[in-house]
């Protein structure tokens, strides 16, 4: 009896500890994000205050107003940057997904010469730090006239993302039993139909997650974009953040406001696709 009580109390305390630890961990993860959102709504004085002002006293939309305002009054071409980012990220993601699906499927389903070495080679490209490529890329882009164009960045991001999408999609197709495609072929499908009507829908969750990762990589990438874009016509939003720094001052409020605008589409996309991610693979079709 006494022993039971002890164990029950111990279980309660452990549970409480779990919650506290989780809360602290989540707080550490979330605070920077919250800080960015908070700063976008308050004046520089409050942002720079020491000790920090945790409970905001004066919330307003001044930073946003200024950002969308005229160039002389702290305005930046937000809409243009947003469009650039969107064009570059969406296009590069689509291409990376298509290539990733073709490649991932091939790696998952077919045997061919040098398969292992090609796969390892692809993964090794991820081991090269992106920044170290910036100078060679800059020279190549400059010579080919792709510098400061959408196409230039799209190519770079496709190259960055393809190894990753292939790897991820390969893993998902591996989990789709070969029997499904065979059953579809017996049911009258061509190889092509079997892929699109059966294998692709089953592995859709994998393709969706690869898509999110590829999109976020291109959307958030700063180092290479800052080298390869020069003008308003090709600068992406992360590069646009630099517009808020001048020789002697940094407009933290404006920078945070633009950062919030950057975060929103990424959040929306993640929420839209997460259903697929969580719904995941339901392999009821096969004995599991």
């Amino acid at each position, binding site marked *: 009896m006494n022993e039971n009580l002890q164990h029950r109390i111990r279980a309660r305390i452990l549970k409480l500890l779990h919650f506290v630890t989780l809360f602290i961990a989540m707080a550490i993860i979330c605070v920077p994000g919250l800080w960015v959102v908070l700063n976008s709504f308050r004046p520089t004085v409050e942002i720079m205050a020491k000790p920090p002002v945790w409970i905001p006293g004066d919330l307003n939309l001044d930073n946003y107003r200024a950002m969308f305002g005229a160039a002389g009054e702290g305005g930046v071409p937000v809409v243009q940057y947003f469009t650039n980012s969107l064009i570059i990220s969406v296009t590069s993601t689509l291409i990376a997904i298509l290539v990733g699906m073709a490649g991932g499927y091939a790696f998952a389903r077919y045997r061919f010469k040098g398969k292992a070495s090609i796969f390892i080679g692809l993964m090794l490209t991820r081991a090269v730090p992106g920044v170290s490529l910036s100078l060679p890329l800059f020279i190549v882009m400059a010579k080919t006239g792709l510098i400061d164009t959408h196409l230039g960045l799209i190519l770079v991001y496709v190259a960055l993302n393809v190894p990753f999408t292939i790897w991820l999609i390969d893993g998902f197709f591996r989990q789709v*039993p070969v029997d499904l495609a065979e059953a*579809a072929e017996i049911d*009258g*499908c*061509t190889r092509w*139909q079997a892929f699109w009507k059966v294998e692709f829908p089953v592995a859709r969750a994998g393709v969706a997650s690869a898509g999110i990762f590829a999109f976020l990589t291109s959307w958030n990438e700063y180092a290479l974009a800052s080298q390869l874009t020069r003008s308003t016509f090709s600068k992406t939003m992360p590069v646009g953040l630099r517009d808020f720094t001048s020789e002697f001052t940094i407009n933290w409020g404006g920078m945070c406001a633009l950062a919030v605008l950057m975060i929103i589409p990424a959040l929306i996309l993640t929420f839209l696709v997460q259903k697929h991610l969580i719904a995941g693979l*339901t*392999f*009821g*079709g096969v004995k599991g």
Partner: protein
Amino acid sequence: MAQVHLRDVVKKYGSLQVVHGINLEIEDNEFVVLVGPSGCGKSTTLRMIAGLEAISGGEVTIGDRVVNDLPPRHRNISMVFQNYALYPHMTVRENLGFSLKIAKQPQATIDKVVDEAAQILSLSEYMDRKPGALSGGQRQRVAMGRAIVRHPEVFLFDEPLSNLDAKLRTQMRTEIKKLHQKVKSTIVYVTHDQVEAMTLADRIVIMRDGHIEQVGSPLEVFETPANTFVATFIGSPPMNLLAGQITGGQIAIDGGPKITVPDQFAGKVAEGQKVELGFRADNLMPKGYAMPMEGGFTEFEMTVNLSEPLGTETLLFSSLAGKEIQAKMLNPRPVADGERLPFQLDLTRCHLFDADSQQSLR
């Protein structure tokens, strides 16, 4: 409906040959079971008929068409897979109607045929569930339903029951047999379970290492096995085999008793020939607990090492000439381990195999 003919069919993976030129004629409406231990090439053979596996040599015909290079969709066949292979993202209804939809049948026809199939397999209540929400037996039925909606010329079954538990397996076995009676068509069925083979088949094809060992009706292969492999593979418990030599018109079991050559083999053995004597547990019984022996029989004593009571009979494990021998006891009484009993062996039911070729001397 159609017959399936295999002529010298060979399958090679690179330099590795797994099916060695098999010949088989499957008649219209016949239920043929390919059976054998794993790795004997039975599934590969089935997959070659299905078109899922390329044929390395020989010829496969379905009906009067040579189908060697036709893709599966042009062979007019259906297949039920071992792990069901249901489409997990579709409901039962969509799974059943998938092939008709691919064939661009009008929706009204699809609905009619699908409902009919659901009726036959009593799936009507589950039509809007996804495969994930079905039990093993229900999934199995959906897989069968998906096969029958196409009204194929040939049904192919690849170990369809091996993922089910024992009770359900027996039940589905009966359903498959009923299905065959109902939809009358040619069925090729692969299994490693000899009970399934015996109960379902019109004809059994026993395979080993890519060769056909024997083809025949269930009773034929049970009663007149062509060689020791078939003898031990078909029937449970497996047939007892004892090595011996023909000496003085008798079989001298190595290190055991001398046994008269059964009448059916008289004149088919030569003096000094090395043989294997085969008999099933059903034909070796303790005296007083045996079937009446009408023809010739012989008697010898053995010590019982272990007994397994099965209710109406008890399985006895004894040893003779250093080999474990299984016998049956009818109307059993409890038997103590180590008890010595006189046994009667029914000679009319014995088999003799040549020790070198392992072939029956019948």
